[in-house]
Structure formats: C-alpha cells, structure tokens
C-alpha cells in the first residue's frame, strides 16, 4: 500500500494524523526506541527518522545540537538503517528517512534507496534537495516504490507549486512559515491560505509542519490539513522531562 493510501485510510478514523520526528542516535538509539514507543502509544501515524549530518543548515538549534551529539556518539549511516529496520519491524506507523542529500550522495543514490527499502522505510525527506537536482533519485525511487516527500512553502509562486506538485508523492509537506524548525508558528489566516494554495495544486494529503507544538495548533489544523508534523516540540519535551513528559506531551496533543 502506498503512503498516500495509507494516509487516506488512517484519515477515515481520525480528523488529523500526526507525523513525529526522531534524530537517530540522539541521545542514543535506546532513547530513540523509548521515544518511539511513546509515539506509537499515542497513535502517531508516521515517523521521520533523521539521519544525522554535520551541516544541518535547514534545522533549528535543538535539532542542530541533536545532529551534532549523535555524530559525536559515533552514529553511522549503517546504524541508522539498522535502527530503521528494527523500528519498522516493531511499530505499526510508517517510517520515512529524513536527512540531507550528502548522506544519499555519498552512499550512492541506488544503494541508498535499496537500503531504505530493505529497512522498511517508505520514502524520504531531503530538505536540501530541490526538484531540479532530484531527477535521477526520483526516477529510481519510482522504480523501487519509494516516495520522495516534497515541501511546499509560503514563498513559492503558483507556478512553482505546480512544479512541486508534479514531483510530489505520498503526501506534501507544507512548511507553515519561513525559518528553520523549532520556533513557534502562529496558526492563523496565513497558514490557512497557504494550505489552500497547496490544495489547489495537489490531491495528495497535506501535512503541515514547522512549529506545531500544542493542542491548539492541532485544533486549528483540523479541517485545514490532513496531518500535523511535530518535531522540535516533542524533542524539547523529552529533553526537559524524559519519557514522562514526552508521554504527557503526546497525550495532550492528540486528545481530541
């Protein structure tokens, strides 16, 4: 079953899906597993596993540090794939690779995709790989049945949104605002208008990310989007209060 169908299916029971995020190897793979356990309990629908990179220029401070610490811990690409395999074997949610293109490039596009597939991942998010540069990777992905997640952003023109839509598979990641991950986004007319513009260009499900941090954000998104993408807020909860606070965070978040 493709990602799009999976999302649509889950949406039958839920007004708003949730995609969560974990930086592989930070603070440790064991901790990652514990976090994922909590996310699974909370009924999270999709998870991005970020492969750490030394130059995470699209990430905000918390993730930057997480990338850095993970690499200091010695995390390798191999570790990440192995972890992904364990995660996909254990949990019901679907898993995406998230990271930077150099990780893919160094491994070789084909090799990367084969390993991703073998680890049970369904696709990937590479924020520094624009569609112009993604031709061969997308083609190979189609062959292998893996889905590139495309980002649509508030600065894109309609023309550009159409181009992005043409390349998008699975769902579209709607970037709620300018900036990097991590700081709070004021949900309001801007977000609604952006989602509407994206919707005009694609029939794929729309996930909205960047700055989703509490139940009120969820409430706002319900009806506008198909999925809320939660990153930094969850990591912050974990860093501040470990498993307990993370559990609290998700139960607050998903309480309808």
């Amino acid at each position, binding site marked *: 079953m493709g990602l799009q169908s999976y999302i649509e299916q889950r949406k039958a029971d839920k007004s708003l899906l949730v995609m969560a995020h974990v930086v592989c190897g930070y603070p440790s793979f064991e901790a990652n597993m514990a976090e994922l356990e909590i996310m699974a309990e909370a009924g999270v629908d999709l998870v991005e596993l970020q492969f750490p990179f030394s130059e995470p220029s699209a990430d905000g401070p918390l993730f930057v540090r997480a990338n850095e610490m993970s690499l200091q811990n010695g995390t390798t*690409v191999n570790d990440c794939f192995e972890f992904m395999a364990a995660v996909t074997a254990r949990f019901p949610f679907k898993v995406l690779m998230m990271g930077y293109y150099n990780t893919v490039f160094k491994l070789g596009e084909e090799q990367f995709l084969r390993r991703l597939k073998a680890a049970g991942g369904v696709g990937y998010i590479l924020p520094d790989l624009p569609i112009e540069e993604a031709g061969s990777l997308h083609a190979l992905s189609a062959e292998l049945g893996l889905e590139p997640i495309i980002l649509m952003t508030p600065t894109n023109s309609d023309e550009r949104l159409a181009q992005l839509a043409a390349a998008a598979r699975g769902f579209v990641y709607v970037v709620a605002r300018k900036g990097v991950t991590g700081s709070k986004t004021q949900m309001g007319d801007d977000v609604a208008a952006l989602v509407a513009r994206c919707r005009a260009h694609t029939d794929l499900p729309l996930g909205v990310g960047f700055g989703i941090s509490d139940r009120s954000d969820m409430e706002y998104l319900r009806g506008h989007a198909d999925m809320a993408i939660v990153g930094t807020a969850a990591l912050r909860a974990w860093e501040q209060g470990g498993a307990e606070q993370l559990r609290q965070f998700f139960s607050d978040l998903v309480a309808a």
Partner: protein
Amino acid sequence: MNLFDFSNGKEGYYGQYGGVFLPEILQATVNELLECFRQCKSDPTFWAEFVELMQNYSGRPTPITHMANLSAHLGGAQIYVKREDLNHTGSHKINNVIGQGLLCKRLGKSRVIAETGAGQHGFATATMAAKFGLDCTIYMGAVDVARQRPNVFWMENMGAQVVAVQDGQKTLKDAINEAMRDWVTNMADTHYVLGTACGPHPFPEMVSWFQSIVGQEARAQMLEQTGRLPDRIYACVGGGSNAMGIFQGFFDDDVELIGCEAGGHGAGSSLHAARLAYNDASVGIAQGFKTYFLQNDQGNMNETHSIAAGLDYIGINPILAYLWEQDKVRFLAATDDEVREALKLTMRTEGLIPALETTHAFAKAIEEAPSMGKDEIILINQSGRADKDIFTVAEALDDNKWKEFIKTKAAQYQQERQ
C-alpha cells in the same frame, strides 16, 4: 573560455560541480537574486557604478609591485605582487562586498547578513553596510569570535551585530549554516552576502564576477609594467574568490595558474584544509553546492586546520574544482611552517605584510621561483594584509615579547577596574 555560458549545459554547473542545493523556501529568493544578478551583469551602468565606487571608496585600481629584493634573493623568476591588501578594509573581500551591496540595493533589501571566519569578510561587510545604510548581522563561530576579537570590535563599532555561533566546530562552516538559517527566515528584507565564491549558484559566479576586477586590472598592469604577461600566477584558495578574481584575467592566455591551499601540518596529517592538493577530499554536497569537500565516508565533514582562518574551509569553489580536473589550474598546498618562513622573508625583504592566507601563495611562489629563469615572471595575488590581525601573526610566530605585552596589558586593565 566562457565558464558562465550555461546555455549548453546545466545552469550554475561547472562540469559536475556547483548547482543549487537549498531548502525550497529559498527557491524564490535565489531565483530573484539570480535574475537581478543577470540584469546587473548585462547592464554596463552597473559595472561602471561598481568600478567608480571601488575607485572612490576603496582605492582601486590597486597597484602591482615588483619584488626586486625577494626576486634577487631567490635568484630565479621576477616576482610581482597584485596589491589587494591596499584596498579599504585590507583585503580583496571588499570587492565582492561592495558589489553585493549595490546588488542588494537593486533588490530593494534593507538588511544584509554574512558569515565570517577570519573576520575579514565580516569586517568588509560591516563596512559596506555602514556605507550603504543597511542593517547588518554577522555570524561568526564562537571560537573565531574569541580568537578574532579585534575584528569583532571594529564590526560592532561600525554598527553591525555580531552573533557568536555556538554550533558544530564553532568556526566558519558553522557560521555559514547559521547565516543560512537567518536567511530562510528573513529573506524578504535580507540579502545574504556570502563571502567567497562558494555556496549555491549564483554565488560562485557572482562573487567571481565582482572579483574579476582584480584580474582585469592585473592583466593590463602587467602588460604596461613589464610589456608581457606573467608565466605563472599564484593565489591562495580558501573558498576561491581571490584566486578566481585574478585567474579570470588570464584564462585565455598561456599563463600557468596555481591555487595554493592550506597544507596545515602537511599531507597525511589530516590537520589541513587542502581539498585538491592532497588526496583527502571527495565530491559531496553541502552548504548549498556540490564540490570537493573534506569529509568522511559517511558524508560528514571533517575538522580542518590551517594557520590561516580564512583558508580553513571544508569545500572549494566549484569552478576551480572543474578547472583543476581539466588541468587548467595546478593545485599546491603550503604547510603552516612554510607559511611562517615565507611571511618572515617577505616582511624583511620587501616591507610587505601579507595576510596569513595570502602568505600561502607567497610560500609556493618562493618555493618555485628559484628553479625558474631570471626572465620568467611570477605574479602573486596579495589578497590581504595582516597588520590588522596582529594576534594571529604574533601567535603564529610564537612571539614572546608580544605575549609579555599582553600580560602587562591585562594586568593594567585589571588594575584600572580596582
């Protein structure tokens, strides 16, 4: 040779190097920049305005100086030096910065951001921002802020906000990442003044274009002063902007071009920043573009090292990577030790104080000049001066009197407070 004719190939690519690898949110901004740059490039009044400003504000044209003593001392080729150190703010960085400042005005933006390592580019950008009345934020690795306080002092006094970046190695590449993060947030009113000919297209082309003023002048000056072209040109290569600047004047000539990288502790030491001269780098994608990077097999960047902060960078200009591959530019690396010796020799014989970055080019020219004929000519691009960076030089030369002086000053400041 027109490197910038992309009609037959991929826009912004030089062979397989270059490109744009940026978050989608910047797509429109980079397109807007590219378009504006194209307009500027095809508008002769823009270049004329640029040249005039460089003349009236920065003192261009910078001269070519014959190093009669150094040449005689080495007993080989005649050495000439293109004096970018005489620019306002003390290096070639101002060429790029003023150019981008003019462009920023055409873009209608009111704020500039920049990364800086050694501080030269930040210093130049803060200066330009003061001159153009732009708001200015400079990102600088926390380690560099601590090392380069003098430059921070001047930047702040020119009204710039200097942000100490606490991520990663807390040096240049981390400052670039942080500047990118600012840009993806504030692109509406903010132009990112990248300091070298790296990063996503059109930066390598654009920075090279502004720096081409160096090579244009140099070619004409060499012909006027010596009646011929040089046999070899040496330029240090951090990101590659000063090298591209001077080399461009001579691409269609029979002139050997030599890029001089930071050899640090030497080949095999891993403590260096030689991307092409040594065998440690490989092709990758980071900081918005594709080129040779000093990275591990996982695609994560290595720690680099150089006596010269401005050469201490993981990647290299994609155009130079391409030209190197085509055997059009030869690459060498100067070790920290060679640089120390070359600096001392240059100061003593010629009364010039090249920046430590620049001294890498001097070191390799000094090494090769003796085996060249007395009628052969070397041209070195003196990309900057070091008189502003005394801490760096005094520490590089391990000068004890300097250290004693600093201790005395510290004691004096301590006492003042009491």
